[in-house]
């Protein structure tokens, strides 16, 4: 597809940034009583960006080394709870807590990646799913994590001024931060793809035994993928928590994990553009459908029905994902 090539690299990043920044700041510049882009619209945009980061981080495991993980929300939520607790209990400022969220997720990701060294396919799905559930129930039952109610009232990040005081709606600074992180992760992923590490990831994905016969240290690279994946998921989780100023065990639920994996798969595993597309599509669609439902007065929310249909259709028509690589050969 020619347009996909056209979007590669800086061009795609530039277009995305122009769109996001345009939407974010046009109201601040116009300064009219009526919003051109209402706060709700910006909220959806920000959530899409945060899930893009989550999808890109999952792409290390489920894309590059081809291991299906159904526990990614555990890292996402772990990052959220880490920075929430550090800022609330230990009164850390946001930025170090934000970094610590990534680091703690990565440190926990290391032992959780260990089973992936030994099991794969459906077995790994069960293991990662189980790990995710364990984290959810820990958060539900600990006093310090606030139990089912979660932790409200988290600090708002600030860079000289509080994020809430920037822009027309107070969401603009969050959007810029999410955009910067997402773009950084996209370029980081591209660099990985073209490096020795990426070569090793590809070999492991295609044939583990042959990879180790070539001298690729399979254990090391699998763990590396898990750690990178967990680190960036932790950052995304922390960002979401401090934007909502609230974190609850729902962030760790398996439904979240499934949604993240679906974003990667629908967008196209191993495609950086695909991760963005999947995240935007699956964040915007349910919102749009809710609006349609309200305007025409449907008695039920059509989203879940449509979600199932999309998945079935995708697997039938384009199993490699919308932007996934076209291959003649399929196993």
């Amino acid at each position, binding site marked *: 597809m020619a347009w996909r090539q056209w979007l590669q690299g800086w061009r795609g990043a530039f277009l995305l940034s122009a769109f996001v920044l345009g939407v974010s700041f046009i109201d601040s510049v116009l300064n009219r009583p009526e919003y051109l882009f209402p706060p709700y619209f910006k909220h959806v945009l920000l959530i899409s960006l945060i899930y893009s980061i989550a999808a890109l981080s999952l792409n290390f495991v489920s894309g590059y080394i081809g291991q299906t993980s159904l526990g990614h929300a555990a890292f996402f939520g772990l990052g959220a709870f880490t920075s929430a607790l550090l800022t609330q209990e230990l009164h850390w400022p946001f930025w170090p807590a934000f970094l610590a969220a990534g680091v703690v997720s990565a440190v926990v990701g290391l032992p959780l990646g260990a089973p992936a060294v030994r099991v794969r396919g459906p077995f790994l799905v069960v293991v990662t799913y189980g790990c995710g559930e364990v984290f959810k129930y820990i958060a539900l039952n600990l006093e310090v994590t606030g139990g089912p109610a979660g932790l409200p009232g988290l600090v708002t990040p600030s860079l000289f001024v509080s994020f809430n005081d920037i822009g027309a709606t107070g969401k603009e600074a969050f959007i810029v931060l999410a955009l910067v992180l997402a773009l950084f992760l996209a370029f980081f992923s591209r660099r990985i793809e073209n490096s*020795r590490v990426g*070569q*090793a990831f*590809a*070999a492991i994905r*295609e*044939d583990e*035994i*042959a*990879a*180790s*016969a*070539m*001298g*690729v*240290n399979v254990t090391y690279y699998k763990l590396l993928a898990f750690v990178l994946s967990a680190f960036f998921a932790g950052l995304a989780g922390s960002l979401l928590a401090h934007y909502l100023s609230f974190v609850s065990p729902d962030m760790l639920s398996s439904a979240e994990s499934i949604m993240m994996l679906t974003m990667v798969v629908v967008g196209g595993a191993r495609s950086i553009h695909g991760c963005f597309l999947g995240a935007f599509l699956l964040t915007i669609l349910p919102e749009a459908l809710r609006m349609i439902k309200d305007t025409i007065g449907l008695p039920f929310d059509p989203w879940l029905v449509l979600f199932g249909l999309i998945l079935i259709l995708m697997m039938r028509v384009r199993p490699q994902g919308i932007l996934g*690589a076209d*291959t*003649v*050969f399929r*196993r």
Partner: protein
Amino acid sequence: MLNVKDINVYYGAIHAVRNVSLEVHAGEIVSIIGANGAGKSTILKTLVGLLRSKTGEICLDGKSIADLSPAAIVQQGIALVPEGRRVFPRLSVEDNLLLGAYARKDNEVSRDMQRIYEMFPRLFERKKQNAGTLSGGEQQMLATGRGMMSRPRLLLLDEPSMGLAPLLVNQIFETILDINEQGTTILLVEQNAHMALSIADRGYVLETGEVVLAGQAEELIDNDEVRCAYLGE
């Protein structure tokens, strides 16, 4: 060059290789023949560290390699061309070859790649194509070339004739002779006993995990038991 003494390999409770000892001298072609399930592939996998022996020694040039990781063993100069070829199906021919050189740290990789392309012009024609789209013979060429890319001193070939048309089998065995003449020692595992023995210097006959016969290749071809059991005469 390679000295294997009394190795025993298990798959769980199954005793797959029993007290096997073998030697490969520099410059030789050595063949291990035997029926399905005799433990031939298991021996090769143990040599490159994909499986571990419970006992015994594996020495390359006098130094033990039994405890090294597969990556370290590749760097010591042993390469395995695995059974069933195991090319990376959704990577290009070129990327497959590059992965063969993964353990190397010098900058002569592209020169060696040229050499592989000269040896197998078909691979050059298809260098941008996904390896999974190649024919069986081409995949065997690719797997062999990929093994050569690590610049091995000892090349282990696991059933290179598997599933190939007779004409291609001849071609593959000629390449093996070529590779050997250019200075690479070869340990070959084959069910096609006649072919394997006809190009080899020496041979080992394996039965249910044990070496039952060893000797010069010509002697083995003439041996009555071997003729009867493996050559179908």
